[in-house]
Each structure stands twice: as C-alpha cells, then as structure tokens.
C-alpha cells in the first residue's frame, strides 16, 4: 500500500519537467566572506549620511513604521480634494548591522497621505510579507535580495519567499494591493495599512509573477503581466476584482520587463536584452547586457491573447512605458522613457544606497516613440528630443495622449528628478516647473477635481531632509505648486502610488 501510494506520488509529480524552480528570486549560495560587504556598506552609509542630508532618501524607517502625524500645510488646497494618496517604495535597508546595496531591495513601505477636513495626515507601515515577518523575527536578513547578495541566505522555495511588495499599489474591486513584480500581489487595508495577505487570483496562479504596472481598460478592468524567464502570463482582472482571463505565452527568449502599455486593440510588451549570465549572486547582479539580442516587442491582441506577434528593434531598456495607440493604417505606436544601455539601468541610485555621494548618470532616459508597421518584422525607435525624464503620466489611455506629464532629471548633485514637465500630443513642451537642486520630485499622479486638472505627488527636500506633498494646477503648471504639505522628517524615496478619492 505504501509503495503504491509512493509510486503515485512521485511517479506523477516528479515527472520530467514537472518541477520548475523559480529564478528571479532564487539565488545561488553565497559564501560568507572574511569581510562582510553588507556591514561595510552599513558603516559607509552611516558615516556619509552625517554630512550628506540627501542620503536620508535611502535611509531605513523603523520596522514599526511611522506616524500618524499631521503635515504642515501651505498654499491653497481645494476643499473638494478629499481622499488618500497611497505610495509604495522600499523603506527598510538595514538589519542586524548589514545594509542592502540596491534600491529595489528594501521592504515595501506603504505611505498614506490622507487629505481630510482637518488637514493632511501622514502614516507609514511596512507590508507584512512572509519575508518581512521572518526577518523581523530574527532581526537579520534571511533571504537573498533582488539586487544584493546576502551572505548565507537561506534558500527559498519560490519568489514569494523573497517578495517585498515594494513597488506600487493597485485598487480594484474595492480592495487594495501592494505590488512587486516577481511574485504575488499583497492585499492591504488602505486605512489601517494592515496586511491582509498574498492574493491568489486562481489556484494555478498562486505565487506567480504579477507586475507592478497594471494598465486600466476603459471598462474599469485591468491588464497586467507576469514574467518568468521566457514565460509571460497576461492577466485581465475585472472591475469587480475577479480574474477574467489569464494566458501563458511562450517567448523566443527571456529578458527584463518592468511595465507595458496598451492601445485600444493591443497589449504591447517590450523585453530588454538583460539576461541572467551569472549563476551566483542576486538577480540584478547576475544580469548581463546583451545588445546583440536587441529589444523584443511582443504584441498581443486583446481579442485573442493566445496570438502574440514578435518584432525586434534597437537594443535598449525602459522601466516605464507611457501611452500606446493604433494608427489608421494599423501601425502600433507607444512612448517610453528609454535607457540606451543596461549601464545605469539595473541599479538606479545604487551608489547612494551604498553610502557614496556621487552618482553615475544613466545612459539616456530619453522620451522615445516606438512604432511597428503592419506586417513589419522590426519596430522603429525615434527619439523625441526630450531627455533625462522619467515617470511618464499620460492623461489619456489607449490612444496617443493629448498630454504627458513627466519628471525631469536635474544636473545637480543628487541627480534626482527636480522638475515636472508637460508635453503635448507631439511631445512639444508646454510648460515646466523646476524646484531646483535641493529637491527630488517623486511620481506625480494626474487627477481631476471640481472640473480642474491637477497632479499630486510627493517631494523630498534633499537639503533639509524633509518629505512633503505638492499639488499642481495644470492650468498654470509653470507657476509652481498651488499647495504644499510638509512633514518634519524625511521618508525614503518611493516608487509608485494611487489616489483613493473620498
């Protein structure tokens, strides 16, 4: 009886190819070096932070979180603008005397800016992921991080063992999720910021990659993807929060992809030629730039997710894609903030995280337009002439947006994004406002209130080491923010957020 059951067990389950180990966050064994580089990093950062206030942008928040506290308001906050800006980003870089070396490694810290009748209240709480809970109990790093080789890291069984849920937020079907990209979405309570747990969209999707950049469809549903080597899952989640469909697409090869875009009829994905070339170490440390592969565009009709079309074009990489559109002749277009090479792409602001006070400028970050003609095997990339921009925010979906708002890099010591720019449909600048060398402007969200158009987002005063909130009236963007709210303390620089009205 025992043997028969065992035959059933192993004969059917450990069959050839049945067991695939995760790759994006399963890491090779790291031997313990004589000098722990993570302790050296911690010492260097602590020393540098004393003389460089801007490094507060990469300083850890206590595991218990922060707040709630009231922000100091100035300017003219519209009375009708009520709701909560939720932002996500890495917030804990240090444990047990060790410090991560990559910005993307920090545990997900959800920051809440509640705009209520009594003012603006800020609080922050970590997503209680399996990784965070485990490391909080032990007081040390336990698993390999996305971009840092943790000495003697314990092996993980799948991406969710190392999921930091630190990249963005999604609100759909009345529920709010903290998103990573290589593992599950984590549901959180948007008011208390308490963690509910990892979301399973369907049994066969448990623990599967779910990117941090879903794209809204006009009916309120969302599209999203998960990438695992050369396997791409395309998701559609209904406006009610239930999975509508999921399609597995086999790609010609792997690569790296952080976001995507959608026209009215198609989903468009672009794989950057960043391949895992080293067996040891963390995921990002093991990536190699393979320009000979080129970039790979994957076009998937919304009407049939099982029929992808592939096209190659110039090698490059983007974290963020903006709008995508269908032209009358069937050409597909999209815009992106484009790095010309992998250099500077895989570890943005990595020097600061490690306690160095100078930064290599990224190669590129040009706003580009990529077009694929009907029947063409290659796409064509064209630069717009707008350079050193990130976090594109189109105001219209599924079409060439009438406006795009972006953050601009300044040539100041922090190398951060100090300006907000407005471009028209053709990429022509319409206005901008630059806070200057002492500020880093974070993602600004486009929203409407009382018939007016605004952007709302956070800002970091790098000189005074304080974090705030700024509101732009887009009718007079170049005049500067119409309202501000400041904390007395810095918060770690984050990635992406969402605004929940009400």
């Amino acid at each position, binding site marked *: 009886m025992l043997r028969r*059951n065992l035959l059933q067990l192993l*004969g059917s389950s*450990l069959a050839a190819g049945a067991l*695939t180990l995760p*790759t994006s966050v399963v890491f*090779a064994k790291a031997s313990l070096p004589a000098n722990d580089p993570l302790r050296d990093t911690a010492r260097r950062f602590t020393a540098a932070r004393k003389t460089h206030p801007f490094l507060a942008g990469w300083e850890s928040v206590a595991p218990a979180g922060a707040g709630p506290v009231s922000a100091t308001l100035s300017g003219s906050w519209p009375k009708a603008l009520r709701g909560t800006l939720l932002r996500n980003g890495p917030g804990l870089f240090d444990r047990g005397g060790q410090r991560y070396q990559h910005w993307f490694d920090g545990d997900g810290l959800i920051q809440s800016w509640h705009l209520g009748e009594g003012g603006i209240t800020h609080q922050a709480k970590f997503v209680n992921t399996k990784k965070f809970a485990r490391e909080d109990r032990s007081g040390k790093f336990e698993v390999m991080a996305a971009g840092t080789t943790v000495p003697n890291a314990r092996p993980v*069984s799948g991406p969710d*063992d190392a999921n930091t849920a630190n990249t963005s937020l999604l609100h759909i079907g009345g529920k709010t999720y903290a998103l990573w990209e290589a593992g599950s979405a984590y549901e959180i309570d948007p008011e208390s910021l308490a963690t509910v747990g990892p979301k399973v969209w369907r049994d066969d999707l448990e623990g599967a990659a779910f990117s941090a950049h879903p794209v809204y469809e006009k009916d309120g549903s969302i599209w999203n993807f998960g990438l695992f*080597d050369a396997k791409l899952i395309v998701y559609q989640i209904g406006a009610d929060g239930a999975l509508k469909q999921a399609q597995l697409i086999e790609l010609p090869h792997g*690569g790296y992809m952080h976001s995507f875009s959608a026209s009215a009829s198609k989903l468009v994905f672009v794989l950057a030629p960043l391949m895992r070339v080293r067996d040891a170490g963390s995921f990002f440390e093991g990536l190699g730039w393979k320009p000979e592969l080129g970039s790979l565009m994957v076009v998937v009709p919304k009407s049939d997710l099982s029929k992808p079309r592939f096209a190659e074009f110039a090698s490059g990489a983007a974290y963020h894609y903006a709008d995508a559109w269908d032209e009358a002749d069937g050409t597909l277009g999209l815009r992106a903030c484009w790095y010309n090479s992998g250099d500077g792409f895989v570890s943005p602001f990595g020097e600061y995280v490690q306690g160095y006070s100078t930064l290599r400028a990224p190669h590129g970050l040009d706003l580009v337009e990529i077009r694929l003609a009907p029947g063409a095997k290659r796409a064509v990339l064209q630069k717009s002439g707008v350079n050193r921009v990130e976090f594109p925010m189109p105001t219209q979906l599924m079409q060439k947006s009438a406006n795009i708002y972006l953050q601009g890099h300044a040539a100041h010591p922090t190398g951060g994004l100090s300006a907000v720019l407005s471009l028209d449909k053709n990429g022509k600048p319409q206005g901008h406002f630059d806070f200057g060398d002492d500020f880093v402007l974070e993602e600004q969200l486009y929203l409407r209130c009382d018939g007016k158009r605004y952007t709302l987002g956070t800002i970091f005063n790098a000189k005074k080491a304080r974090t705030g909130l700024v509101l732009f009236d887009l009718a007079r963007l170049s005049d500067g923010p119409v309202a501000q709210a400041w904390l007395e303390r810095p918060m770690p620089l984050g990635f992406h957020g969402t605004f929940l009205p009400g």
Partner: protein
Amino acid sequence: MSTRLTFIAAATFAFNSVAFCNSACAATLTVKITEISEVAGKMGVRLVASGDAYSGKAKATAAQMLPVTSKDPMTLTFPDLAPGTYAVLVMHDENDNGKLDSNMLGIPKEGYGFSNNPHVMRQPTWDETKFEITAADIAIEIEIL
C-alpha cells in the same frame, strides 16, 4: 525575467536491491526533515544511488511516504545500506493529491528538499546533492523549502 531553472526529478520509483547488503557491511541512514510548514498530506522521501537514478533514468534504492502530523522535525531511517554514494529527494504532498502541485509557470506550490540542502537557483545536480555512506551509520538533515 531570468534564466529558467528546471530540474527533472525521477519519473520512476522502485526499490532496487543492488545497494542493499547484509548486516556485516550495512549502514543505517537517518534522515531528519525540518522546516515543515503545513500539517497536512504526506512526506515522500526517495533515496537514490546514482546520477541516473537521481534523474529518473534508473530505479531508486528505497522510498518511504509518511503522513505529516506535526510541524516538528520528522525522522526516518533507511537501514542496511551498502557503502556508496547516495542522494535523498523529499517532497511534501500537502494536499495528498498524489502530485507536487505547481502554478502556471511551473513553480512548486508545495514543499520539497534535497540532501545537502543545495542553495542553487537552478536544477540541483546529482553532484550537489550526493553524499557518501561508508560502513558507519550516518545522519543527515534536509530542510523543506
């Protein structure tokens, strides 16, 4: 996003008397299984004595399957083993459905482990999981992932 890491475990499983010997040269292997996360289903443990057996191309030396009744470490023994090179593969069939469940990407949803607890991000190889048994009894510990 990354390199695929697929490993192929044995498709076949059967006892093979070749590796057993009489009591004069016999050793007992004690396997302690730790980090059990779910009190459910059964723990399947497979002992192999060659690279071919490891990859399912030849018969395993021995196998056991035990119900999981606690998160406490589970200990089992393989007696009467001849000196040689062996590896142990463990899988936790948590829902007792007779297979190791995985998601659409092929990532296991149930626990598994190997001798030597290799910290690898690809298919653990026979070389990474193998260990030597002499005439003396031996105990190993396998951590369930």
